[in-house]
């Protein structure tokens, strides 16, 4: 619509002072920038909408040598449902932990999910 502008208005679009700083080599018109901004915003919004459409966090269980435990798809603020305890020959299962060193136990009854994560099984050797 505004493609056929008079030269006078075109000159109004030129930068009135040269760019400085990190932009000093930039040569771009306002119209191009507008397209880039609108395109960028549209892409970001679509990405976020895609994320919202596919929302949910995956809690995976690393049984570390024991029988496999299926992963759970949960929403923010949900509690992890206590899975069937895994078994491992020669060991006794002693709970799920949020870190590999088994220092921080995951309390299934009070802790809420706020991100995708892995819970690690702790094992005690059968004496």
């Amino acid at each position: 619509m505004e493609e056929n502008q008079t030269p006078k208005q075109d000159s109004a679009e030129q930068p009135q002072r040269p760019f400085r700083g990190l932009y000093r080599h930039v040569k771009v018109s306002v119209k191009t920038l507008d397209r880039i901004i609108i395109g960028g915003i549209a892409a970001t919004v679509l990405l976020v909408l895609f994320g919202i459409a596919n929302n949910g966090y995956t809690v995976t269980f690393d049984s570390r040598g024991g029988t496999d435990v299926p992963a759970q798809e949960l929403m923010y603020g949900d509690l992890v449902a206590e899975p069937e305890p895994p078994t491992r020959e020669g060991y006794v299962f002693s709970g799920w932990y949020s870190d590999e060193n088994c220092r921080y136990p995951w309390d299934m009854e009070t802790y809420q999910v706020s991100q995708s994560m892995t819970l690690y099984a702790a094992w005690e050797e059968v004496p």
Partner: protein
Amino acid sequence: MTKLKDKKPSKLEALKAMSPKDRNRAIGDMLMNNAMFIIIAIAVVGIWIAEPTFLSIPSIVNIINLTAAKLPIALGVGGCIILAGTDISAGRVVGLSACIAAGLQLTTNKLFPGLAVMPVPVAILAVLVTGACVGFVNGFFMAKFKLHPFIVTLSTQLIVYGIILIYMQLGTNSGQTLSGMSEAYRNFVTGKLFTVGNTAVPRYVLYSAIIAVVVWVIWNKTTFGKNMYAVGSNEDAANVSGVNVVKTIIMVFMLAGMLYGLTGFMDAARIASVNANTGLNYESDAIAACVIGGISFVGGIGKVSGAIIGVLLLQLIFVGLNYLSVDQNLLYIVKGMIILVACSIDMRKYLVRK
């Protein structure tokens, strides 16, 4: 000058006086220049409608806490951006400071076996010195050799990461996560300041506010601050008018380093466990916050309030998307897009300015 200001009509009146074409253009400019704020406002309202607990008191306090925790690093990066530079070593310096602060405060110290828990001021001093040292290296190479800020800070980022990894191997620690810090230290940072409703506001919100005030005074009321803006907007002109450019650049980066150090100091106690990856990618959040808040890559332009608004808006968005259970991996892409769009908007603002 004052007379001219008195006669200047308000923005609305000026808009009415324009021809329809100019008016459309002015409105278009305004919409485009504030596109990021408009989008974020719409997103916040949208998230609030989908998840009403998003704007409940505990959630708002949480957002303010996160803003306070990320503010010092954003102010540090902001200073570097005002110099028309940037600092991508920021996150790693936060990590190193967090490791050092934690290392001095462990109750059973595996890093330095036998070392008693140090008083809290010693830890603060240690992180300030660490940050200032890295900042000095950054500033020195940038000011003396005119190297590109990205290259210098990329190098220091690598160097600092190496130091973190070696530091974590000290004693009998062998790279494990540091946890179990002294009660005095944890309480100093995360102790209760006051409660809103039933939600406690931690002390580091107060420290962050104090840091913001101090930085505001430095940027606006000291010769150093004025020199910083002068060097940022035109280095040659500043040099001609007698500003010591080299000293100013070095000092800006040292100040930034100290702010990263304080961020690390607060983060170690806030998260209560520190490993070699603490602070990873913090600089990307800080840069995004600064650009959203109007601290421009043009150089010499930016305010403390801009950094605060930028950090707050970014936290609002990401806490909100967390509430909607959006995949964390996707959020990295969103963050990158936000930086690109914010830079385009920033560029547009100074392209049309008369």
